């Protein structure tokens, strides 16, 4: 299972004019990982599929405003430095 949002810590200078955003995020939606879609994947029931915009749970990745999550985008750094690991609090 992949995470559909990654976070990293940008450089913060004491001379930056705006209050720093400690953690920045970017989206990595499922189509980046799926490759050629295999046959026989699970499907949403038709009514739900029309509601969500896709028949395939594997392609369903709703977006929410990362700035609206609890403070600083809601992402706490978990100490790993590979630039892609975060915990959503």
């Amino acid at each position, binding site marked *: 299972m992949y995470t559909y949002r990654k976070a990293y810590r940008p450089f913060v200078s004491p001379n930056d004019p705006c209050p720093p955003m400690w953690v920045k995020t970017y989206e990595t*939606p*499922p189509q980046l990982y799926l490759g050629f*879609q295999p*046959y026989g994947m699970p499907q949403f029931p038709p009514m739900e599929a029309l509601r969500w915009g896709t028949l395939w749970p594997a*392609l369903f990745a*709703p*977006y929410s405003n990362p*700035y609206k999550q609890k403070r600083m985008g809601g992402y706490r750094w978990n100490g790993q430095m590979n630039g892609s690991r975060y915990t959503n609090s």
Partner: protein
Amino acid sequence: MWVYEKKLQYPVRVNKCDPRMAKFLIEQYGGADGELAAALRYLNQRYTLPDRVIGIVNDIGTEELAHLEMIATMVYKLTKDATAEQMKEAGLGPHYADHDKALYFHNAAGVPFTATYFNAKGDPITDLYEDIAAEEKARATYQWLINMTDDPDLKDGLQFLREREVVHSQRFREAVEILKEERDAKRLF
């Protein structure tokens, strides 16, 4: 040829009178990565793509026209009952001076639509890669639009449109895989 269904692909509801949001949404109407550019790009490219992927491009181009209608409906609803004063306050004064409440194909900054927003190179891989990039750019635009509104009903429609960009990108990526495929290789599933 098309058959028209007199309904939207997904219901468009708007909760809040917010002409300023209409100004931002117009990016997806007449902007470089908007639905009009997408529809025209795909429907134009389909003639010169290999047979095996024409269907994908045709279907997606058609769906973009349905998305165009949804965006138009959102913009229309957001500005329908705004006064000239409200239009001015929302930064739509220049638009109002030229078009009243009429929709016009321009981007959020008021730059008119142009055919130079998309290309048809004739090289299938090149064209499909442009299509994938276009879908990702439209997806990103929807994300920034979602970030700028608090209206849950409007957000709901934008979420749907963003999800469709995800699916379209996936299908274009598969189209590339189809063209990469070795014709005589055994297919195992």
